[in-house]
């Protein structure tokens, strides 16, 4: 079941042949080229939080429509949190409106931003713990993302800023872990549904 | 046109037959055209073998100084260019001792089937006559002969031929000469046939087929999108529409099959454009699922079903009235729809136009039950009057929140938002839905929507178009569609014998109007139901939907032969004497 798998996969090295890169017009740079600017870094940070928030909101709607109120509420909460993070970034940067995406597009490692939950991770019978497993996975990926950015930064300023973002994400990781401790683990047979799927059309 | 010709007749029927490129249809069409030009009314029906080319063919014509809607009980003359497989048409060309056969002796003897009732045979070497005029054809000789036999002036014939054979020169001259030769030969036969002179022309007249009339009716009604899939005998309707529609800003698209054509038309109608398709029985069977969609989503659509011999592939080139059941009851679920039936060639125009109006106004599918006889017959008719039915769809104008596409209203009709209108976007759905169009399996919604769709049809006032009700008497003959002409003639004959009988020809079959029929049958004790099918589909429908008098009888047989006036006349006579 995916939420369980998600928990174990965070440290596993993906066995894919190549990492899919999206909308990268230029080939990966190997030679030392200028790293991201502060603006680019924070634009990524903002987009990351916003996309995560939107995804959690979509999750909440899907769970609500399937009568899984508890998990829906949890995802709504996560969405609010991510929205708050996004707002914080705007505030820190003094931006009155969301920054435009970089001309070359966002440079995520995967198909979407690292904090954006994978849609296929949902299960209509999932329990709050599973939702937090997803959130944990996302925060850890975001943390790694900023760590990498910090390591590849070519300016001290940006390295510090990326480091600060990484630290933020590490804090989020810790908060989710705390939250998980307070949340009952999934019951055995949580995904058992005595009813078969329904025909609708 | 004197003594040799006998008393002028109020109707004459003549058939021309031949095979293998004999040009029978051309000759027949030209004769009809010429008679029309000369002021007569006429009707021509074609019959042929199954071959695509070179098969046996017969042109069946009838003329009169008054409008005609059906073939007579017999033919006065049969002109045979040759006899190959012509025995096939014996049932369709009834001859008797007063009939005349003119045949080419070099082509063999007439088949026995034509001689059983003592028709007079006259030999005329048509082929030789044609050969004597280089560049001419036997059918032109036959044309000249036929025209002269019945009294259509050669001048009218020549005008028609000249217009058709646009490339002048040898062919035209030869054809004209052949016509003269045929006319001369006719003079020597002494047939004793002559048509009563035509009346002075009071109104504009047309020469038109039922299929063309239906196409024109559709356009008059506002149809501007047609999806087409060819099928005998509806193809000509679509082919007429293909160049006609663009002239009025419309479009015809050929589809890959009937499933596509009906769905295309529904899609276009959803977009706000009155739409139509035409087919025959097998195509209608394929379309039934989509017709249900039209009912459920309340998207108007008109389907012309040009009925032919069934079931299954049946007899594609012959007429039959055997799609009544599928039209009335062929959709799954409770799916009310409109079914109308034109009852003459000219009425194909008015009734198709009416169908467009009804479909648009009631936001429902309308099936027009035409048939091969009406569809492919060419008739001289008085120009159908301009009628005021123009499709009027109740549309929703741009508004604010709260638009309910399927709102429950007293009339059952709810305004339809046309794509492009801001603020009213909705999803049309075959799924049962609530007033907003959101899918719903709730009992309340289903009942409300079913009642809405039924009420909108049943509550509508269909006006005088619902039926032709004529005459008086204790006996009534109830029929529909192409049988109407024969019934009308039969009752005219009965009246001449002092027997009064009422005619009720239904144009509106669904929704049924029991109150109206009861009023039309007030005082009637006996009803004779006339239809052209084996199982009595129309009778079954009448019994199911209406209050009928105590005594009901059926006069029916399936295609390919038409119901003839005499069959009905005899039944009326015999029944009223009892």
């Amino acid at each position, binding site marked *: 079941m995916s939420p369980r798998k998600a928990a174990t996969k965070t440290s596993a090295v993906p066995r894919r042949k190549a990492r899919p890169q999206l909308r990268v017009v230029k080939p990966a740079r190997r030679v030392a080229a200028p790293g991201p600017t502060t603006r680019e870094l924070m634009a990524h940070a903002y987009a990351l939080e916003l996309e995560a928030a939107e995804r959690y909101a979509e999750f909440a709607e899907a769970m609500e429509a399937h009568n899984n109120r508890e998990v829906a509420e949890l995802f709504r909460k996560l969405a609010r949190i991510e929205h708050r993070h996004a707002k914080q970034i705007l505030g820190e940067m003094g931006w009155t409106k969301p920054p435009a995406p970089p001309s070359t597009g966002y440079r995520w490692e995967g198909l979407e931003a690292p904090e954006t939950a994978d849609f296929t991770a949902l299960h209509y019978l999932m329990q709050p713990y599973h939702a937090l497993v997803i959130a944990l996975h996302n925060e850890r990926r975001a943390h790694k993302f900023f760590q990498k950015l910090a390591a590849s930064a070519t300016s001290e300023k940006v390295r510090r800023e990326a480091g600060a973002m990484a630290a933020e994400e590490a804090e989020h990781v810790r908060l989710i872990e705390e939250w998980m401790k307070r949340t009952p683990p999934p019951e055995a047979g949580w995904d058992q549904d005595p009813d078969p799927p329904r025909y609708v059309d | 046109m004197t003594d040799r010709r006998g008393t002028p007749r109020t109707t004459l029927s003549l058939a021309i037959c031949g095979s293998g490129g004999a040009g029978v249809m051309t000759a027949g069409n030209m004769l009809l055209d010429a008679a029309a030009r000369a002021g007569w009314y006429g009707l021509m029906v074609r019959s042929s073998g199954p071959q695509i080319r070179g098969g046996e063919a017969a042109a069946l014509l009838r003329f009169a100084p008054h409008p005609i809607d059906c073939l007579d009980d017999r033919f006065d003359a049969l002109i045979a260019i040759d006899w190959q497989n012509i025995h096939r048409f014996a049932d369709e060309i009834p001859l008797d001792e007063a009939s005349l056969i003119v045949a080419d002796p070099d082509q063999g003897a007439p088949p026995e089937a034509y001689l059983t009732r003592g028709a007079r045979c006259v030999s005329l070497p048509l082929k030789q006559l044609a050969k004597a005029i280089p560049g001419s054809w036997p059918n032109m000789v036959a044309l000249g002969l036929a025209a002269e036999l019945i009294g259509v002036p050669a001048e009218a014939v020549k005008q028609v031929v000249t217009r058709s054979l646009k490339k002048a020169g040898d062919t035209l001259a030869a054809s004209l000469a052949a016509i003269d030769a045929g006319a001369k030969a006719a003079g020597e036969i002494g047939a004793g046939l002559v048509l009563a002179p035509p009346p002075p022309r009071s109104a504009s007249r047309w020469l038109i087929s039922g299929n063309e009339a239906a196409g024109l009716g559709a356009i008059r009604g506002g149809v501007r999108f047609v999806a087409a899939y060819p099928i005998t005998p509806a193809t000509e309707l679509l082919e007429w529409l293909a160049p006609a529609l663009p002239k009025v800003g419309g479009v015809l698209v050929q589809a890959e099959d009937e499933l596509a054509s009906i769905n295309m038309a529904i*899609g276009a109608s959803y977009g706000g454009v009155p739409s139509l398709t035409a087919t025959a029985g097998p195509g209608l069977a394929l379309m039934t699922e989509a017709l249900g969609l039209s009912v459920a989503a309340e998207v108007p659509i008109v389907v012309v079903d040009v009925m032919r011999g069934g079931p299954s592939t049946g007899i594609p080139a012959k007429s039959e009235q055997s799609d009544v059941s599928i039209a009335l009851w062929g959709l799954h679920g409770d799916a009310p729809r409109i079914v109308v039936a034109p009852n003459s060639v000219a009425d194909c125009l008015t009734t198709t136009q009416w169908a467009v109006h009804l479909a648009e106004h009631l936001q429902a599918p309308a099936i027009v039950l035409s048939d091969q006889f009406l569809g492919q017959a060419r008739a001289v008719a008085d120009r159908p009057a301009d009628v005021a039915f123009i499709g009027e769809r109740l549309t929703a104008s741009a508004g604010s929140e709260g638009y309910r596409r399927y709102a429950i209203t007293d009339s059952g009709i709810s305004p339809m938002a046309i794509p492009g209108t801001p603020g009213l976007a909705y999803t049309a759905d075959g799924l049962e839905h609530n007033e907003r169009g959101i899918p719903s399996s709730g009992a309340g919604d289903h009942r409300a929507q079913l009642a809405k769709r039924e009420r909108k049809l049943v509550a509508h006032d269909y006006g005088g178009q619902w039926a032709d009700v004529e005459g008086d008497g204790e006996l009534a003959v109830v029929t529909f569609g192409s049988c109407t002409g024969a019934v009308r003639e039969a009752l005219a004959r009965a009246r001449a014998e002092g027997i009064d009988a009422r005619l009720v020809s239904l144009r509106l079959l669904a929704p049924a109007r029991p109150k109206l029929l009861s009023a039309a049958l007030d005082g009637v004790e006996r009803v004779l139901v006339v239809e052209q099918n084996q199982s009595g589909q129309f009778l079954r429908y009448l019994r199911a939907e209406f209050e009928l008098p105590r005594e009901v009888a059926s006069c029916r047989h399936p295609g390919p032969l038409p119901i003839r006036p005499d069959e009905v006349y005899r039944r009326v006579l015999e029944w009223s004497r009892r």
Partner: protein
Amino acid sequence: MTTATAPSVAARPPQAYKSDYKPIWCPGCGDYSVLSAFTKAFTALGLAPEQIAVVSGIGCSSRIPAYVTSYGFHGVHGRALPAATGLKVARPDLTVVAAGGDGDGYSIGGNHFLHACRRNVDLTYVVMDNHVYGMTKGQPSPTTEPDWVSKLSPAGTGLRVFHPLVVALAAGANFIARGFSGDPNGLAALLAEAIRAPGFSFVEVLSPCVTYRPEQREWKGQVRPAPVGPTDDAARAARRLLTDDGFNIGVLYRGSRRPFQPPVGKSAARAAELEKAFEI
């Protein structure tokens, strides 16, 4: 070429294209992302919702018209393309998008798929392919692998899968692309491009069914951007598509056939003029 209205002063955000009705799709279904991608594409194109019509057949993915605020038409199984064709030909001013699943589109809708590609009317067809009939509880579809076992195919179908992109190319589609629901932003860009492209644009979207094909969660690890850019050479495209393994994402073919659109609209002639041919 769909004439997209210039984005108004405040271009509509994707939320403006999402209706209030919550999808019935199982949580985890790829179609949620496809819906999201649609809304983002509409935003990018700056189209007014009333100028868009989404036409579908029957199946899980065919429920999509109700979930967007544009005009919608939820027709019968397999017949989205003819309905969309009729609508677009009669109303060329609208942006028409046909949508559905692999069963609806390639099985019962197969014939219409061929002819829609051939006819090349200016519309966009999006197939959410999950290699299964989801709505009817898990039967093989034309794109299901031959060894996939189900109640209707206890030994697998044993049939070679249908190759929709190859068929689309052969039948005459003017724009052929493959998308992946796990990449909603990329898909949104792809959809916008498809809608902008004139003629018949076909976008096959890999969209996992977590209920009947949970293994399709692995797709995110298997898809890749197409190794080369789109070609406008049909022969080259044919070679590429015939050897394509089903996981190349992006625009694969962009042709230059002129769209089919008969002229419609007002004209000088009136119905009365058509009668002249019948007058004696």
